[in-house]
């Protein structure tokens, strides 16, 4: 017996009903318990009642999951605390690099990016993204490709650094005016994200690493881009998006760019890999709860 006395009469049997239902009697005591139940219909009835009720609850009621909004709120509060007294983005990057799962090679790549960032701190972050965007014009494809280069150079620095989507999601909450997509991408590790403005238009930037490569997600308000208010898309890209929901092309620097729309968000993924592979990463992402 684990924690009960052997049942020898109806009163003691009654005390053992609950541990019996919860499978907490030893083999020997379970045998004594069953023997008593076999001989005593009244006690057997009590046992069966409790057993069936416990089974009913377990079968019908399942533990609820905390809503994403609550989790995001908790995380936002802790993040805010950390922002108020916490590390700078460069420090956060350095902290990230100290994590054991960052391989030495990846650490070297990220260290390089962090060092470049530190050396280029005179550049206005995160408005540096806007500068990068301005140089590349208002075309979404060119701007996203240009921003990808800025990520590699350390000019775009995540304001939130975490490999946990809920943390990054919490950071974006209420900052953009459109849902920000943070999928769990296969074989990729989330690095972090940031928000900035391009001529008054909010943009979200999310960075992943895949082996030694970075995958950059650029996100904007779909409606605004489609209207061409501030940012615009080529006619070909618009047609593809309307027709298939996707548009794929190669950026001037040779990186693959994949565009797609989902709900109110226009997304552009950029990575130095084959466009088909990049699409596969996105398509195979664990999308539920990614917004």
């Amino acid at each position, binding site marked *: 017996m684990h924690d009960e006395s052997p049942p020898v009469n109806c009163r003691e049997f009654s005390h053992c009903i*609950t541990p019996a239902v*919860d499978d907490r009697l030893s083999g020997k005591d379970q045998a004594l318990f069953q023997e008593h139940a076999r001989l005593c219909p009244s006690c057997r*009835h009590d046992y069966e009642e409790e057993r*069936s009720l416990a089974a*009913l609850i*377990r079968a019908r009621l399942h533990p*609820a999951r905390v*809503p994403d909004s609550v989790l995001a709120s908790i995380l936002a509060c802790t993040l805010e605390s950390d922002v108020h007294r916490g590390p700078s983005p460069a420090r956060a990057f350095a902290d990230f690099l100290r994590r054991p799962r960052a391989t030495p090679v990846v650490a070297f790549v990220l260290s390089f990016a962090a060092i470049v960032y530190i050396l280029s701190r005179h550049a206005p972050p995160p408005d540096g993204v806007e500068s990068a965007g301005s140089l590349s014009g208002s075309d979404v494809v060119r701007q996203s490709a240009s921003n990808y280069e800025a990520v590699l150079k350390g000019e775009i620095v995540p304001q939130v650094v975490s490999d946990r989507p809920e943390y990054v999601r919490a950071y974006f909450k209420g900052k953009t005016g459109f849902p920000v997509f943070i999928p769990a991408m296969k074989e990729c590790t989330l690095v972090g994200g940031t928000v900035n403005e391009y001529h008054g238009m909010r943009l979200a930037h999310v960075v992943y690493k895949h082996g030694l490569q970075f995958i950059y997600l650029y996100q904007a308000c779909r409606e605004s881009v489609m209207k061409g208010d501030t940012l615009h898309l080529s006619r070909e890209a618009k047609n593809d998006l309307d027709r298939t929901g996707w548009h794929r092309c190669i950026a001037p620097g040779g990186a693959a760019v994949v565009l797609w729309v989902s709900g109110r968000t226009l997304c552009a993924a950029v990575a130095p890999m084959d466009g088909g592979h990049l699409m596969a990463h996105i398509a195979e992402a664990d999308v539920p709860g990614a917004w």
Partner: protein
Amino acid sequence: MKTQASERQRSFEKEALPHTDLLYNYALRMSNNPSDADDLVQETYLKAYRFWDSYEQGTNIRAWLFRILKNSYINRYRKEVREPDKVEYDDVKSLYSTRGEGAADQNDLQESMFGNLLDDEITDAIASLPDEFRTVVILCDIEALTYEEVATFMECPLGTVRSRLHRGRKLLRGRLREYARQRGLAQEQ
């Protein structure tokens, strides 16, 4: 200072955040109100983060969080807690007047009767239990925690957990039978 903040947040993330579902589920079942559950869990975690330095690393984090949640719940529902429901064991026993040789067949009938109840009715029946019984039913039967864990959470002996669970289940069965009668799934006895 910055490093301390970062370490603090990281250890909080690692230790406390994995238990959000457990706490939310408990808060939801206790309050029977999603909005209240949201507030309770957020309040619990904010307090936990604020007092994180007072948490002794390596001790039972779930019990620590649970105590904060329980105190928040009590504060929120202080009025009700001042006058807790009293349940006499005799009242519980009186719910079960049908016992005897035909019990096995009756159980089959009850299985069928309860099987037709809605999940919401089962939820409501649990919500109607007095706090002390509701807590152990939620933690043992829905959260599948061990008696030892529940005893730690509730700061009571193991035997108390077992007896409250036994009595809570009996009460619950009586209330479910009432629901079944109201819906015509069971006849008046």
